[in-house]
C-alpha cells in the first residue's frame, strides 16, 4: 500500500480506534482499485463505498485528512468563540433533537 493509504488509515485510527481501523484496512486491501493508474489520484468513490459500508461519515473522514490528523479541533477564528463553544458543548445535537 502506498504512503497515502497508510496516512488515511492512521488518521482514521486516531478518530475511530483500532477496531474500526482494522476493518477499514481489510476492506481497502480487498479492493485493488483503490488507486487509479496515476498514483497521486485517489479513487475517492471507492473510499466512499467503504466508509458507507462501515457507517462512517465521509465528512468526518475527509476532515481528519484535510487537517493532517493533528488537530481535530481547528484554531478558532477571532470573534468566533461563541460559535465554537456551541458545537463543543454539543448544543447542535440538542438542536437536532428539537427538530
Amino acid at each position, binding site marked *: 500500500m502506498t504512503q497515502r493509504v497508510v496516512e488515511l488509515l492512521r488518521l482514521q485510527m486516531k478518530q475511530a480506534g483500532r477496531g474500526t481501523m482494522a476493518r477499514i484496512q481489510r476492506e481497502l486491501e480487498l479492493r485493488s482499485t483503490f488507486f487509479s493508474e496515476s498514483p*497521486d489520484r485517489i479513487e*475517492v468513490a471507492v473510499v466512499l463505498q467503504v466508509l458507507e459500508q462501515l457507517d462512517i461519515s465521509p465528512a468526518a473522514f475527509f476532515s481528519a485528512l*484535510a487537517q493532517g490528523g493533528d488537530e481535530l*479541533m481547528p484554531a478558532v477564528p477571532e470573534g468566533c468563540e461563541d460559535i465554537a463553544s456551541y458545537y463543543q458543548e454539543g448544543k447542535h445535537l440538542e438542536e437536532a433533537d428539537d427538530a
Partner: protein
Amino acid sequence: MRDWVAWLRELDQARYEDPERVLSELEAARSRVPASHQPRYFGVYGSTHRMLAGRSQQSEPCLERAEELLRFGRWIAERRGDDSAFADLLLRSSYVLSDRGDYRQALVLAEQANALFERCQDRVGRGRALFEQGRFLFYLNRTAEAIEAYYAALRLLPTSEQSNLFSVHQGLGLCFQRQGQYQKALKHALRAEALVPSPWFEAKLYWLQAHIYRGLEKHYLAEQRLTRAADMLSALHYGEAALAAVELVQLQMLQGKTKAAGDTLRSIIGLVIPLGGNHEVAAAIVELMRDKLTLEAVETARRQIETAKECSQWHSLAVEP
C-alpha cells in the same frame, strides 16, 4: 425574516467586485447567522479573505485567515453532517492551495469535493469540482487527464453556469494548444467567446486565441487578437499589458513588420511609470528600448517579464478602478 441562502449567494458574487464591503457585512452579521447556515457563511467569509489576498501587497496573512475560516467552516459542517456544505468548503479550500501554488494538494481536495457532491447528487457541484480538477491537472502538466476532467465537467454543467462553462472551454483551449492540437484548441477558444464573463477574461481569451493562431501560422489573425488583448489589458493590469505588448512586438518582428514593431514598443513607454512598483518589468522594457531592436532582445525582455509574473507583487500592478 432574512433569506440567508439568497444573502450568502449575493455576497459570494459581490466579493469579486467589492470584497471590503462584503467583509464588513459578513462581520456585522456574524452573531446572527443561524446555525444551519454557518458552514456556508464561513465558506463565503473565507473566500472573501482570499479575494483580499489578490489585492493586497502582503497576500500571505489574508490567505492564512482564509484557510483558518474555511477549516473552521469544515469543522462545523462535519459536526452538522452537512456533506454538501463540506464539499463546497473543500472546493473553496482548494482555491487557497492553488493560490499558493500547491496544485497537488488542491487536486486532492477537489477530488474529495467531487465525491461528496456525487453523494449529494449535486450535478452542478460535481461540474465545478471537475472543472477545478482540470485546472489543477493542467498546472501539474497532466494535460491528457485535464482534458478528461474538463470534458466530464462539460457534460454536467447546465447552460446557466455561463462563467464556469467559459472557463472549461478556455481550459480546453489551453490544453489542446499545449498539445499542439491547434484546430481543437481554436474550436474551444471560439466557443468561449460567447460566454465571456468580464473584460479581464475577454482579454485573456483574445491572448489565448492569438497563441493558437500563431501555432496555426495565421500571423495576421494572431496579431489582430493580441492587439485587442494588449489594448484591453492596458486598462486592467500594467504588468499583463506590458507582457502582451512585448509579445506583440515579437509577433510583428517575426512577420518582418519592423516599423509597426517600433511603434508598438514606443506605445509601451506609457507603462514604465505605473510599472515603477515592479522594477524588473520596468527595467526589462527600458532595456529593450535602449538597445537595438532584435528578436533576441525582445525574447529576453519577454522572459524577464514572465519571471516577474511569478512574484507575489505581480497583482499589485492591477490598474486601480
